[in-house]
């Protein structure tokens, strides 16, 4: 079973074009959708999760038309939204039970079994009687995971799932996802490059609604071999370096600035070759050296890795 996204476009009434002619094919396994905030990731995820309609294009999940056969899609769907709330005055156990009924688990004993298993799996069993209003961000996120896993979904869509998790929780959660990916289509959107590099067999980079790159992470890294160069400079020298070289990212290291540039041959002048990683693939793509974007945005991308959005 594969998920086929064909020529999907979406423009909001405010005039913002969230998706531009997006075409992707997503096989069984973990698929990473990488892009900065506001790139259109969530719009794409919501559209696949049947919560939004594109202006144009089609989406198919195996035999199902996602845009028409919404109810059928929902029966196989697990969706973890980027941000969500929970009824504050209801206990975790009781709300998960409610969702279990909504997902069609009608029989009481089966429901009890599933709810218990999921609460244990997400380590919420001890606090199952507590009201959800008192849950921390991480606990809420795990509860969302439990809801998404109800009903053994064959299409799992997780939108920025690691944003609220601490490092240990994140590892555990990603493990869980990768196991699920053995039999299901798992689409993971993130702006954290490590999430993708550690897990995904395939990935796409999206920015401003456009797919800039669709690739296997390892192969993409391979392709950059010998083209990424590094130099440590003073901050004051940065404008000059940017003028002369195709800078893809800058980072601070012990008070000095580390510059990565993309060049097919050594740019000289103190630059040394580095072993590229997925982050270099991401920044190279964003800077337009990969995937066909005109190289006009180099300067503006210097900020490097961004922080997660504050939950609004």
């Amino acid at each position, binding site marked *: 079973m594969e998920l086929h996204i064909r020529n999907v476009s979406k423009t909001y009434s405010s005039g913002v074009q969230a998706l531009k002619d997006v075409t992707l094919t997503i096989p069984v396994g973990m698929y990473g959708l990488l892009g900065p905030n506001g790139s259109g990731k969530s719009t794409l995820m919501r559209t696949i999760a049947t919560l939004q309609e594109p202006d144009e294009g089609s989406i198919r999940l195996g035999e199902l038309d996602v845009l028409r056969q919404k109810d059928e899609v929902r029966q196989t769907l697990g969706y973890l939204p980027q941000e969500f709330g929970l009824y504050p005055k209801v206990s975790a156990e009781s709300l998960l039970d409610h969702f279990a009924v909504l997902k069609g688990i009608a029989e009481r004993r089966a429901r009890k079994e599933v709810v218990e298993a999921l609460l244990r*799996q997400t380590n919420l069993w*001890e606090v199952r009687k507590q009201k959800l209003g008192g849950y921390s961000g991480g*606990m809420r996120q795990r509860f969302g995971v439990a809801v998404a896993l109800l009903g053994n979904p064959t299409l799992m869509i997780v939108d920025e799932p690691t944003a609220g998790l601490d490092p240990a929780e994140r590892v555990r959660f990603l493990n869980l996802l990768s196991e699920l990916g053995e039999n299901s289509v798992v689409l993971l959107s993130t702006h954290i490059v490590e999430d993708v590099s550690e897990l995904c067999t395939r990935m796409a980079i999206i920015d401003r609604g456009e797919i800039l790159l669709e690739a296997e992470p390892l192969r993409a890294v391979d392709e950059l071999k010998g083209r990424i160069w590094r130099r440590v400079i003073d901050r004051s020298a940065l404008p000059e370096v940017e003028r002369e070289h195709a800078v893809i990212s800058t980072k601070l290291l012990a008070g000095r600035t580390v510059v990565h540039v993309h060049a097919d041959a050594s740019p000289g002048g103190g630059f040394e070759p580095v072993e590229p990683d997925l982050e270099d693939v991401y920044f190279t793509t964003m800077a337009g050296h990969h995937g066909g974007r005109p190289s006009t945005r180099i300067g503006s991308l210097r900020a490097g890795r961004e922080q997660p959005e504050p939950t609004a």
Partner: protein
Amino acid sequence: MNVTTMKWLEIVRFELIYQFRRRSTWFIFALFLFPLIGVTNDDLIDARNREILFHAPLFIAKSSVLMSVIALLVLAGVAGDAATRDVRTRMEPLMHAAPIGRAAYIGGRFFGAFAMAAILLVVVPLVHMLLPLFHPDLGAETLGPFRTAAYLQAYFLLIVPNAFAATALMFALATLVRHTLGSYVGAALVFAGVQFNIDFVAETLGRWDLAELLDSTGLIALEVMARTWSPVELNERLIGSEGALLWNRLLWLAIAFAVLVLTYRRFHFGGNADAVRWWQRGRLRVAGPAGRRAAGAGAGGFEGAVTQRSAPVAVPRVPRELGTAGRVRQTLAIARDSLREMATVWSWLVVPFLLLRVAAILGELNTMGAGTPVLPTTGRVLGPFEDTPPPIEILMLMLPVLLAGEVVWRERDANMQALADAAPVPDGVRFVGKLLGLWLMIVAFHGLLMLAGVVSQVVSGWYDFDFALYFQILFGLELVDPLVSGLLALSVHVLVNQKHVGHLVVLLLIVGLNGFAPLLGIEHPLLLYGSEPGWRHSPISGFGPFVGPVLWFELYWAAWTLLLALVARLFWVRGVERGMGERVRIARRRFTGQTVGAFTAVLGLILLVGGFIFYNTNILNAYHRTTEGPERQAEYERSYGRYEGTAQPELTATELNVEIYPDRREADVRGVHHLVNRTARPIDTIHVAVSSQVETGGIELGRPARAALVDDDLGHRIYVLEEPLQPGDSLRLSWQVRHDLNVQRMIRGMEASLEQFTERFGPYPYKVLRMVEYPAAGGSLHAESSAIWYQELFSLFDPARDPRRIDLPFAVTAHEVAHQWWGSQGARVEGLALLSESLAWYSAMGVIEQEYGTEHLGRFLGFMRRSYLTPRSRADVPLLRAADSFLAYRKGPFAMYALREYVGEERVDVALRRLRARYAVPEPPFATSLDLYRELQEVTPDSLQYLPGDLFERNTFWELETRQATALQTPGGEWQVSLDVVARKVVVDTVGAETDVPMDDLVEIGVFAPAEAGEGRGKPLHLAMHRVRTGPQTITVTVPQRPARAGIDPRHLLIDVEPDDNLVDVPDPSSRSNHEAPGDLPLRVRLPGYAVSRPGSTSQSWSSSLSCRRQKTSLPTHVTATTSSMRRSSSRASR
């Protein structure tokens, strides 16, 4: 400008701009314009019809206050949003982390909301000013002179302070409960406050002065002005000249500030997410160690598992059921979830609501019988449902609307919609599930209403619960409407997709449009949403014919609502469908063949049911628009007015043969009129008025005649359904009631009255006297020749529990029996009421005195005197021209009683006997009040001739006051009492001009011994007439023992609107202290024209429900548009 002020201003500015940019603000504002223009337009028509100037300051003020109360529905949204937006949008941490003080934050937000309100409400005086421009036909005689001051005062004295106080209250409640619902509760409190102050503080306690202060809107202060001002003042005087209103404004500004300060002190930055509610404390403490362990585990997250790694994802594979059974389970789960949410949000209201409802029922049971408690039968306890009074009506209306909003927005309010909407639940299942939850909540609410009824009965010691009736009404007839309203509210909320606007649209649909539509001439019940013919339940006749029509109408409106629900289902919002365009596109996709089928079926149902109703209202029965009445009247006058004064024969006798078919609600009347020509000339044309309400068959004139004109359409009714007298000369009483307690009282009242009146005024003029109870909820009585009719409530009066210790059923019976002597003599001119009602009450006083003694009569007169407590202008017609109920039922009897006490009962009775003798034959000319007056003057001694004049001919007020009374013991052991009294006599004309009249009148002076236990007032030591002049003077009397109280006119024989200052305590000379009399109120706000009661005393204004009408009898049959009407009848007149 310091930094704090700058920040404060910035918050105000941002708030204002934010609110102004919100589309919903403007939408809601536009919705507010509907009632505003409607009410103002009504005012304009009112001004024209009642001859009040439209630009009169008081008129502008009342209309402004009314609108500022209606505007609360709009302002609640603004204030609630300002108070809770940061909570809702989760922007709280950002705002609270900013370097803004609490005062600037709260103050800024509040002033932003208040400024918004003040700016929006400018439209109220504006519409009032501009609307006359659209009615060029109205001239200066309707509008009056335009005065800027009147509008400025209305805006700055009423609208702005009201907006300030209400916004403060709503803002505070919303801030404290961190939910916009808080501001709606605040708005409801303001509504309830007005109602409470009018109904309880003013009307029941008689404390109008207190009510004026306590009413947050100023409406009661204006009401007092309206009642006490003279006609000239009503049109010209500015409201700002009244002290009570200014005090009220200051008080409420102070309260508003106090509320804001309290909010400021209770408000914590960072919210109170961690705050433990008091009812959770115990639970948490018990949960202590285990809870901590649990919390630790929770915080640890996946970590524990990480170290052990990796138990595979083991979600058990369980069967899923997504067929019909699964759908049903889903529906029930959603219903349960909605119900749970509502129950948790509203459960705290259960006990307060129950208490309020029980208090309201008990209050009503105790006041509906003019102060005599009424037996709490189930029918009475549920009485309010027949025609729901405002507070409960508003609640019942708001409940489904507010709950529907909460239900529709449940997931989105919790920001959980993405999780919920991705679940495999069809839209229809979710819709029905929510509807079911809402319905269950409404059913539960009705259960609560039933519980309140039962509790009220138990509290009153009544255990005869009629559960069948409870179920029939609360879970039958009265349940359908709220359920349909719930579906309507749910559908509108789905369609409108904006919570606050949704609430307003629903209210507008249910209330507003129906109030507005008649202005546009739309009034057919099939076109006014939710209209139904209404029902009544009577222990005698049960539900009668009402159930069928009510259910047909309810089915009709349910069908319309279902249609709306089908549309709403198409537009059901799922996921993030934002724009209207997208919603329409999705709706079009959802519009399948199945949907078409459903639409067709529902439309068919509407046509079928609507057609059946129309067949009943318009074809089986005649349908008349309200405007048709005046139109037809005008047409009648144009066509036949010229025959007025044409010589006609006189009707001397009538024989009627009436066949009543109750099951068919038909009556067949055949009759013969005997006409005699008593004029000097021959008459060759006979005019017969027929009624357009009935079918009139052939009319035969007993001699050959030709019909020159037959216009049954414009005819008018001449039937008088008086039954001919039964043969037999014994007194026969027939009864249809179950409470023998009151039957005995009434029989005793009839017997005592018959006996005394026969002695005083002559023999009983008929052979039979019947008292008949008929099925109607009210407590009013009618007296007809030889028959007295009364409604069911009257039989439920329970005087044994009356705290005032008076026997109202006995007294009212005596009054009705007295009508057998007083009623048929009077001509239909001004002053008729004096001849019938006043004389009937005067006569009844004698029976009460004879049966129960002078003390009981005194208490009864005290009860009747309570209506003086209602604010009332002193400008009035004299009693000889009495027409309104106050003059007829109160002032008239008191004048007769005063005359009796001055000239003696026998002399007054002589005058009354002479009057009866002169008008014994019921033929013209009939008596007028002038004839009574002449007879009364005749029996009054020369020394008192001024008195009948002051009582009847002029509108005279005595202002009598005792300033001080002192007592000294004489050597002989007696006590010499000196009273410093002040007296004044004024005559007030009909426009309020007062003229001082020199006074040299006989006034009673009383000195009383200390009251014994159980006595209201001590034994009189001295009670005699003294001559009293205008101005201050000292009167000295000697009494045998130590006096306690003394004063002028202690029995209130003369008309004095401040009766409380007549008596004072006589200080004990041995103690030398001059303490305040306990019976007097040291702090008292005086208002012109009416008196203030003592605290603790209960009073009743004599409501019209007990007024006894003599003139007209209406058939005790309810005629409704659909099913019941009298259709067949014929009449015959012969000469």
